[in-house]
């Protein structure tokens, strides 16, 4: 008898008793907000996790990205395949593309990465990436030390976790990001930046 059959047989002998229906009376969203209030809440929650939040519109994004990359002193920036070209039109750093042949060690030399996102969640201060063409593979938002993520507001902004799951495709690789990499393993003191990007900047595009 295979282990699979053995385990299934044990379960069938063991599982007994009444079945319970799952109550779904928990809230879909915590509170009613205008789109502007949702953007404010996202910004506040991101800031609490020490992400840096900026706001601009389509006209201002190129200058903002130029400034953020210059302030950081980045010489190179990773660019996902379908990042809107005008976003980086004014930026100085050399654009690096993530190719199948590029090794993690090569990507480790790149200083910044700019991506879009699948959506953002106001109540938890979370951005979700689904490896879409304006986000690229998971490794490009992981290896560089500086990640700038652009959230289109209000289109990509939801209020709550249940609303987010409804809009996500589970067959895509998903990365939920709430603030920069952090640890609390030493005396429960929170320290930002262990293995992932130590600086996370979020641009709310369209939110004024």
């Amino acid at each position, binding site marked *: 008898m295979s282990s699979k059959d053995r*385990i299934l047989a*044990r379960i069938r002998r*063991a599982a007994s008793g009444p*079945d319970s229906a*799952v109550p779904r009376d928990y809230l879909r969203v915590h509170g009613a907000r205008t789109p502007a209030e949702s953007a404010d809440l996202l910004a506040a929650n991101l800031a609490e996790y020490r992400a840096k939040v900026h706001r601009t519109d389509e006209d201002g994004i190129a200058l903002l990205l130029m400034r953020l990359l210059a302030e950081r002193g980045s010489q190179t920036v990773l660019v996902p395949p379908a990042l809107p070209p005008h976003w980086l039109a004014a930026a100085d750093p050399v654009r690096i593309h993530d190719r199948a042949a590029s090794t993690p060690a090569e990507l480790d030399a790149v200083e910044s990465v700019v991506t879009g996102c699948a959506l953002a969640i106001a109540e938890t201060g979370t951005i979700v990436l689904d490896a879409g063409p304006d986000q690229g*593979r998971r490794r490009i938002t992981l290896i560089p030390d500086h990640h700038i993520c652009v959230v289109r507001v209000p289109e990509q902004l939801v209020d709550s976790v249940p609303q987010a799951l409804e809009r996500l495709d589970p067959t895509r*690789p998903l990365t939920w*990001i709430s603030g920069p990499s952090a640890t609390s*393993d030493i005396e429960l003191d929170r320290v930002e930046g262990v293995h992932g990007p130590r600086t996370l900047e979020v641009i709310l595009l369209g939110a004024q």
Partner: protein
Amino acid sequence: MTGTYLGMPAFPAFPEAAGEAVRDEVLRANLRHATHTIRDKRARAVAELEDWDRLRAAGKAIKDHTLRHLDCYLLQLEESVTAAGGTVHWAADADEANRIVTDLVRATGEREVVKVKSMATQEIGLNEALEAAGIAAYETDLAELIVQLGHDRPSHILVPAIHRNRGEIRDIFRSEMGSWGRPAPEGLGDDPRELAEAARLHLREKFLRAEVAVSGANFMVAETGTMVVFESEGNGRMCLTLPETLISVVGIEKVVPTFRDLEVFLQTLPRSSTAERMNPYTTMWTGTAAGDGPSAFHLVLLDNGRTDTLADETGRQALRCIRCSACLNVCPVYERAGGHAYGSVYPGPIGAILSPQLRGTGSEIDATLPYASTLCGACYEVCPVAIDIPEVLVHLRERVAQGGPVTREGIRVTLRPAHGHTAERAAMRAARLLLDRPGALRAGERLLARARRLAPRRLPGPGRAWTDTRALPAIPAESFRDWWTRERGTSQ
């Protein structure tokens, strides 16, 4: 009957191990600071959600429903994972799981693996099994790294190095990092920032060259085959996305039916464990994705005592556990005894009910774990899936003291009462004898009252242990019955 291996050799009984820990003042101070910090933060994070009780009830019901139909959901999961390009393996016990993982690593030709913190692989002693096969397993979670470099054992589910303070961690890094890879920077201090940076440098070279990773998972979705890992540091993302081969060892109880079910646990798990609205990183993957992440994904479904636990209708609620560790942080016994006293990778209140069920109550440590509690109920109050830990503790105490029917490795057996409870049962039998005979009881009481000045301060024989930690009550000069007769003139 072979015992289920929980990653550790034979341990002393809980009272002995706890007694030693209680006398360690540094340990107690470290633990008190850590548990109080996190429990206060958690209370605030939970208070933010007005529907917390409803989320808790939903989480409990999702888990109970899944356990009731575990066979169906595991088969559905296998189908979904396979359809998405993964391979599913079934492991009845620790040995089998270790063999499967070792063979999979060997097939890649690699001699080292990077690991995401995982309770399941600690439970089965995977690192030791890999080492015996000549494969080096590197823990990459900061706390696990501290434990591994310190040749230590984890003492907390979420913060395995909670028993260490920054000075101790600095010393471990200074003396041990060099023998595993990049040494600690010159003049390393004890600031948590500096220590985290040292870990970053030490581990990055391993991440960037790793070809094989081993992980667990917090949840598996039957409907879609999606695996979910919650973490904070990014070491999880490194392991889950950079290597070519990913092997995940996951307990069969971690499955949930639908993707939508995650909406409950994504809200309750981070708030219960790290007291945050959301942990910094959560990775979800479904089989393999073309060009993104590992090209080979293996899922090892682990039983190792879980089906036996499922067979116990009272005890099976322990399988609802989502490993948040909130129960550890509120437990007055854990706070003083520390995680090592529990002699298992699952310490604290949840460990006290999980370990004796996964391993059976045959060993001394497992027979004493159900007594490692004051039954104050704080663990039940904080549990995000409403596991009634005190109820299971009492149930297991009864099993230890009285024996009775139990399932081990799928077979129904009858346990004999454990050693060490003979005195307890003899005392109960004597009490029954006496209480059934009012005349004998009255005579005995009078005799006791008259001899009260001769009563010892400590009990002799098997009662000594009881009086080691308790004062023996003074015997009154007059029994209650005599007082009643004197005052009221009747003995009825």
